[in-house]
């Protein structure tokens, strides 16, 4: 067993512990034995404690694991394929695309509630990514990192204006958007989970095949071409994976940043620059971070809760600065 395999197994163990914490700790005080009985099916099935455990915390934890893994992997793939250490699904316009579609669903179609507009957010996120990729691909040398980043910024700004224009004239849309804009795992149960899970699982499996080609791209396009890689095709495949992963994650939970940005750097720090390792490391590290932040948000202000996005914002900023300060960011 190599050191890196050992690390991976260790992370798997940590994730299991964190998932267990996520089911036993929350804004409601439920005794450990009662949680265990509910999980074992021997609890009082009608009781609120059992409902909270089985119908609130279990789907929330599963969603946290899947969404976290998806965001971490999407960030790692994007950073690899664009060779931009600060790449994140947010930079590719994904949140603005999802926001426009959510607002459209609320104003034009009268849709309400997180469970329903998941699909609009998904469509919007993927639409924005495709648009960004298409625009960046114009011209001879194809979708270079700089063009991707700029197209992402342009699309974000343009769609942002559109969203503001609609929201300013519609109070309902503003309210829904304000809710949606906070990345959160709360209030999403089995319908949302079962809706996005197939996309997330497929995307995660597919992403594991990208390690080798990302390693090639990391050496530079010419080298990659020299190694016999078809750079354009690789990029398109990587983007398809990112679109599915980040799109479904954003649709389910709203925009959650930092995880996709920071986790790949931590992974790189732990296992070195080999993407065949960075991807699985990110896949385990990201849900650990997301679930820990979520548990913190639940117990800090009980009986209220902090949205996981807010917690990540507060603890993510110093981590971000730290990474930049110690220079790993620059070498990516």
């Amino acid at each position: 067993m190599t050191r890196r395999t050992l690390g991976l197994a260790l992370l798997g163990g940590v994730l299991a512990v964190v998932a267990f914490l996520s089911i036993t700790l929350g804004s409601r005080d439920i005794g450990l034995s009662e949680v265990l009985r509910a999980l074992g099916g021997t609890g009082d099935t009608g009781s609120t404690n059992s409902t909270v455990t089985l119908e609130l915390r279990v789907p929330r934890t599963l969603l946290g694991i899947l969404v976290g893994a998806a965001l971490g992997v999407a960030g790692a793939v994007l950073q690899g394929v664009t060779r931009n250490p600060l790449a994140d699904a947010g930079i590719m316009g994904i949140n603005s695309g999802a926001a426009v579609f959510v607002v459209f669903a609320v104003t034009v179609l009268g849709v309400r509630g997180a469970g329903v507009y998941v699909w609009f957010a998904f469509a919007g996120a993927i639409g924005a990514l495709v648009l960004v990729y298409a625009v960046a691909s114009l011209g001879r040398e194809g979708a270079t990192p700089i063009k991707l980043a700029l197209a992402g910024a342009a699309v974000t700004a343009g769609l942002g204006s559109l969203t503001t224009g609609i929201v300013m004239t519609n109070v309902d849309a503003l309210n829904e958007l304000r809710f949606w804009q906070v990345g959160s795992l709360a209030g999403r149960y089995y319908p949302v989970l079962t809706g996005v899970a197939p996309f997330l699982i497929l995307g995660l499996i597919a992403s594991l095949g990208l390690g080798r080609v990302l390693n090639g791209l990391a050496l530079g396009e010419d080298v990659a071409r020299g190694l016999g890689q078809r750079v354009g095709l690789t990029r398109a495949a990587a983007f398809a994976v990112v679109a599915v992963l980040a799109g479904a994650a954003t649709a389910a939970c709203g925009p959650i940043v930092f995880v996709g940005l920071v986790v790949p750097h931590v992974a790189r720090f732990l296992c070195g620059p080999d993407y065949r390792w960075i991807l699985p490391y990110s896949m385990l590290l990201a849900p650990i971070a997301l679930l820990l932040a979520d548990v913190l948000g639940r117990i800090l202000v009980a009986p209220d809760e902090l949205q996981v996005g807010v917690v990540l914002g507060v603890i993510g900023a110093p981590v971000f600065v730290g990474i930049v300060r110690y220079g790993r960011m620059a070498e990516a």
Partner: protein
Amino acid sequence: MRAWRTFLTVAILSVALTACGAEDTPTSSASAAPAGPWSFTDGSGKEVKADQTPTRIIAHAGEAAALISFGIKPVGIYSDEPVKTDPNLKNLDLTGIEILGEEWGKIDVEKAASLRPDLIVADWWPAEKANSGLEEGVDEKSKKIAELAPIVGISQGKSIVELAEGYEALAKSLGAKVDDPAIAANKKRFEESVAKFKAAVAAKPNLTALAMSPSDDKVYVANPEYAPELLDFQKFGLQVINPDTPDPGFPYWENLSWENADKYQPDLILWDSRNYTDKANAEWGAKQPTWFKIKAAQAGATVSWPAFWMHTYGDFATELDKLTTAVTAANENIGS
């Protein structure tokens, strides 16, 4: 159309300026208003004086509804949302009234100026020390409406009854015949509704109520201290539960995570009117596994709570009657 309207306002303005407003055709029905001098002490404690009784009034949404209910028709209205959806305005005939704004913070002061108002009526908010529409954060331009005419407003936040009485007093000072049977009918109906409500509440001494607003992320429980109509309900004898730990930064509500939705067990749920529908209870029960852990919700004991908007005796009476029905139908022991 737009050009014509602009042309007309300019034309009216120039005519009016030369005529010094002497032979105005009064647009308000308070044409028999006493000539003045006029004075009124408003919710902020300041006394506003004028040589003549104001007749050309611009009012904020709910305040306009109050004045209209006493037979005084404002020349202009500004509201915080489209007049078609504003609960105060949506059922009123607004023909002949200029709409000066349908979004918070945005008042068309140019149009307001062309109406030559001599009084502006907008609630006074003691906490923010500002009148409705002039709070911190609105467009700088909108605040200029205060330069057009004196502003009066009844103090908000403690009681809808006081608000209605305050606007009754204001309307009376402006010449409204508040004792005219047609106008006083609303007040009489309100007094009857209060009596019925008190009787219904007295018949159920153990009944408790909780004002709630469920949302996708959490459940909000209203703090009656900051909701004038809930304070009125408490004065009428209804036990509206005061949440024990309101959000320190925003004490209007206590926020409960969905895990803690059943923290309070009232016998009757007063449901925020802004997201209440007849089907809302069933929908939230299906969507949120813990909503029906509130026994009153499970039993369907919910009623719309007219949250933060009422200004008139008539509206209050209508809403009270709905509550009376719900209180009568409620089981006072379901929550315990």
